[in-house]
């Protein structure tokens, strides 16, 4: 696929996304009561307004995409194509963290997130992901950020973060 055609496709998809969002908002607005009281407009007024404007924006984006591309567009910085392999590591880190945080505690979960993410970020720079030695270094680095962060926020600022044990230290 040529550059030009993929750009039209991608921009159109963003427009379609906005249209879908507008549709979802409109569908949701159907179920909101319109009891207006003195104001003349009820709790469903803004939802309808947002839904309609979102549909208009989506349609207009689609039109711009198909008639020469978005207007006054600044070229995005960085590479032309995305590095999905590196991204997968970072995404895995964030999602694993979300899934495990309450089970294995903040420190270990964030350390794991750090290890996965740092590996992905290194790969994106074209460097090796690293062997066992590097993995150990990553673990220690992650632990040295997550640990003090946990202690600082829970002990000093009394923010609730989950621990693995009830000791308050891990």
């Amino acid at each position, binding site marked *: 696929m040529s550059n030009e055609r993929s750009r039209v496709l991608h921009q159109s998809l963003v427009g379609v996304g906005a249209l879908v969002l507008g549709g979802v908002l409109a569908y949701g607005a159907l179920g909101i009561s319109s009891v207006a009281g003195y*104001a003349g407009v009820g709790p469903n007024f803004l939802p309808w307004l947002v839904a309609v404007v*979102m549909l208009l924006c989506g349609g207009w984006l689609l039109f711009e995409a198909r008639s020469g591309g978005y207007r006054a567009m*600044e070229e995005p910085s960085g590479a032309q194509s995305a590095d999905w392999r590196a991204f997968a590591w970072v995404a895995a880190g964030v999602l694993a963290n979300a899934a495990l945080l309450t089970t294995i505690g903040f420190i270990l979960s964030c350390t794991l*997130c*750090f290890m996965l993410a740092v590996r992905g*970020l290194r790969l*994106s720079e074209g460097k090796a992901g690293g062997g066992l030695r590097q993995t150990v270094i990553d673990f220690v680095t992650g632990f040295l950020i997550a640990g003090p962060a946990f202690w600082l926020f829970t002990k000093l600022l009394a923010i609730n973060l989950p621990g693995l044990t009830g000791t308050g230290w891990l």
Partner: protein
Amino acid sequence: MSDIWTQLLGGFVTAGTPINLLWAFVGCALGTAIGVLPGLGPAVTVAMLLPITAQVEPTASMIFFAGIYYGAMYGGSTTSILLNTPGETGTMVTALEGFKMAKNGRAGAALATSAIGSFVAGTIATVLVTLFAPLVATHAVKLGPPEYFMLMLLAFTTVSAVLGKSTLRGMTALFLGLAIGLVGLDQITAQVRYTAGIPEFMDGIEVVLVAVGLFAVGECFYTVLFEGRSEQNLNRLNKVYMTRSEWRRSWPAWLRGTAIGFPFGTIPAGGSEIPTFLSYGVERKLSRHAEEFGTSGAIEGVAGPEAANNAAVTATLVPLLTLGIPTSVTAAILLSALQNYGIQAGPQLFQTSSALVWALIASLYIGNVMLLVLNLPLVGMWVKLLKIPRPPLYAGILIFATVGVYGMRQSAFDLFLMFGVGLLGVLMRRFDFPTAPVIVGMILGPLAEAQMRNALSIGEGRWSVFIERPMSAALFVAVVAVLVLPRLLKRLRA
């Protein structure tokens, strides 16, 4: 006048307690650090720290947050000058001339003029806030719901239509923010909206989540996806020092920058982007060294915009504190910090929370002095932060993102949602959608809706209520002008 003086003194007494001085210092230092570090801005840092509002008392945390906001402006210019990757929109112009100066071995002078200029502008602007904010507050008490709604409409319009390159993409971002703000309970009738049966949505979507998702997680995702191979060149730092002639060229630019920046900060014109560019244009026109602009780097081109930036940032406190209307993303997040305490920002604030307001203003004077010390003699220390390699930096940011998002509501669901918002952030950056309207829309949206419905109640359901009252009508004209004038000018010029 003497009244202001006593209250300010009272503010200094509160802000001067050791614990509050410590908060101010930690805020300034942290702000400088995150300003220097690429990838984090003041808005997202304050957002990540919003959970502390559950424990820390309001005065201390506002002093802390203001220190971060301020410090990030100082730190941001260091990065712009040495690395040419501005973190905040306001320091974009600094990068234009400052980076060129640094390339030609004048990094020290550029850093000096930006730090001292920030100090001068910040201090003058704080004096102006001290004098004007109470005055605005006394008049603002007379504003009713129709006027407030129009003011908010003006803020929406400027932040979405004027700032970005494309009105369409700005509007899309704004309405996305409004849509996010709709989730949860309607403020007036407690009607449930857009929760899709998910209990987590009942309380709405947290600002922390969206700000951290869009700015921190989104930035991290974008970096790993697209920026892996981008090279970064760090300019060499030399002695932070200005010659006599550089002083002579700097100070008028500082004053002009302040004069341009302050008024722009006070009106809902969307932060510091316009005044910094305006100041840059003025300096370029007035300078006797026009040949240095864009070539070897002109010191006026750093001094003016830096001053304009700091003056505008300080001035955003006027609409924030007196009207409850944020004109920048960070101000919007400060507003939501106040909301967490149940404090209603608005003209009554000067009566109901006068101790807080004056301590905050006093802390700005103190913070400016702290920042001058932190940034002039100690600049070498901050520059070391720029040597941290990207992978551990961005991976570490994810840990702090978790603290902020999870710490706010103790909900793992929010962490999954944060991932989704991060992806949205990548999309918006890739397709050049502005992100500021999303945050302003989601925070200001519910407030604007309430004001609009209250206004219509006053008008017994008639929309004409918005144009029957003179002040409201004038604001309506301003909204229309903001929408129409730029287009008209463009057409006339073409």
